[in-house]
């Protein structure tokens, strides 16, 4: 086993994903503490090599690229095979991925296959006596657990937005390497067909400065219109709780929560949302939460900076009007 830290960076269309930057940042710190190198791995189709250079600016000492058509779309069998080849070549002390639909689909396989520990969805990482230690929210955020790897080699996935981004330094120098991929599509038992990307109307939830979110308390799909009016004014994204999505009032990609999106706006306006722990996993990183709910005991108020107890049907139109005035000035 080396002292190196290996991170699995990800490509989203023509850019490196933000969680890759978080991975490089925490990976750099851990590699320095271990006196090892930070090695970043990037897989993808055409153009991946060019993008991969950006990982050196984010702190990687070495970048390993696998660029081939079969990796253009995500395929668990193909990706696992390539990542495992790189893993075995480097034999890292620590392997980190983002807790994304790609990272959490690969890391448990790599960890199990190579006999390492695995900690999912970590919000903090450190070394304790040379072993990887992590903080993980459990019971949908009702409790925090601190865990320590019992195996010397450790694997972990990090929660998006839980770590700060790496400072980009374009003058950094590093080594570029390649991994040759010899996978025959016919030999794989899974194949990638296509991605249906949902283009968010207006502002993307993950990037929004303001989010207006509705829950079970809205009472119906048609009532999201009131929120949309307020959102338009604030250039905000509209979100929903899982209860609202399960009821069919809002589409899946609007869901904020443990299995939906994690948002970190300046202001999160929660309307008719009780604040179940799994929702707060997604809304928790918001800098300020305003809650509007008829139930004064709703847990959302424990997390809010300001609260109004009452019917949102009266509050939201008045608030929209008020914001209209404020934003004119």
């Amino acid at each position: 086993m080396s002292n190196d830290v290996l991170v699995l960076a990800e490509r989203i269309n023509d850019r490196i994903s933000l969680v890759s930057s978080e991975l490089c940042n925490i990976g750099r710190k851990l590699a320095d503490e271990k006196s090892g190198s930070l090695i970043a791995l990037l897989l993808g189709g055409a153009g991946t090599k060019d993008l991969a250079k950006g990982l050196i600016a984010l702190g990687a000492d070495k970048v390993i690229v696998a660029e081939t058509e079969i990796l253009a779309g995500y395929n668990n069998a193909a990706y696992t095979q390539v990542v495992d080849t790189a893993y075995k070549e480097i034999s890292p002390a620590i392997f980190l991925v983002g807790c994304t639909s790609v990272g959490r689909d690969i890391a448990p396989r790599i960890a199990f296959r190579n006999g390492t520990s695995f900690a999912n969805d970590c919000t903090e990482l450190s070394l304790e006596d040379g072993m990887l230690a992590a903080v993980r929210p459990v019971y949908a955020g009702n409790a925090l657990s601190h865990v320590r790897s019992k195996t010397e080699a450790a694997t972990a996935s990090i929660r998006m937005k839980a770590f700060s981004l790496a400072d980009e330094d374009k003058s950094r120098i590093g080594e570029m390497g390649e991994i040759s991929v010899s996978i025959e599509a016919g030999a794989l038992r899974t194949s990638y067909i296509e991605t249906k990307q949902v283009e968010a109307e207006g502002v993307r939830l993950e990037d929004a400065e303001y989010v207006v979110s509705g829950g079970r308390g809205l009472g119906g799909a048609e009532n999201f219109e009131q929120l949309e009016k307020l959102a338009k004014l604030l250039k905000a994204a509209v979100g929903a709780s899982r209860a609202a999505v399960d009821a069919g009032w809002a589409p899946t990609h609007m869901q904020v929560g443990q299995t939906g999106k994690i948002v970190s706006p300046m202001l999160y306006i929660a309307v008719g949302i009780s604040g179940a722990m799994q929702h707060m996993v997604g809304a928790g990183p918001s800098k300020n939460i305003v809650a509007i709910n008829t139930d004064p005991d709703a847990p959302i108020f424990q997390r809010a900076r300001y609260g109004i107890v009452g019917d949102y049907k009266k509050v939201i139109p008045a608030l929209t009007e008020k914001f209209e005035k404020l934003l004119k000035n």
Partner: protein
Amino acid sequence: MDIIVCVKQVLDHDIPPRDFKVDEENLTVVPPANVSPVISNFDEYAIEEAILLKEAHGGKITVLTVGGNSAKDLLKKCLAMGCDEAVLLQDEAFEGSDPFGVARILAGAVKKLGTFDIILCGRISSDLSQGATALALAEALDIPSASQLIKIEVNGDTFRCERVLEDGEEVVEIMTPCLLTVSNEINNPRLPSVKGILMASRKQIPTWGTSEVDVDAATVGAAGSTLELTRLYKPDLSGNCEFIEADSLEEAANKLGDRLREDKII
């Protein structure tokens, strides 16, 4: 179509946060009195999907769980919903297993059951949220997997599946035998029928331990676990909410706007 569903018994995820208690000394969660354990949330969708597949294509559904005696109630519920058989995997040696240990036990049980077409699991457990057991099980059995699915279509021995992503959906094809994990968008789990409950009450649920399941005892249980829990506590979540009060809600909204402007949030 032979389907195996793996489920986990967890603390009821719907209990209010104020009833959620942690014994920090013993690093455990204290279940509130009179609250029975439930099937982990996403696993219920796996059970429902198995029943839907069986209704459309015929076959047999076997449910597996690793746990104590109380897990039998959960298995009864799965049978009452429409599953055919259930096996409880219980042994002192299994206690304290981490997800990888559970995967090894499940793999041993799957091998004992013989052939199967698909294994269905929930995408992540609602208690420890490791999301590792299912994928490690696929790894242990050397079968392909597709995770967090919102749609499964059968085309002979190939399945066309849709995975939910951060920003859309991805379509993949996978050959059987395979392991699939499901997300909550995939279906609406049914409640057991009265007839189902009656039928389930008459069914025997066998228990398999280390003498029935071929597994290396050193790689399961607390000793085989790869993570050590060093602390468990409730996070401090008091946001010191300021309730905006006024004679009318319209006025309260007005005041809220002013406060947000003073704070330079708007």
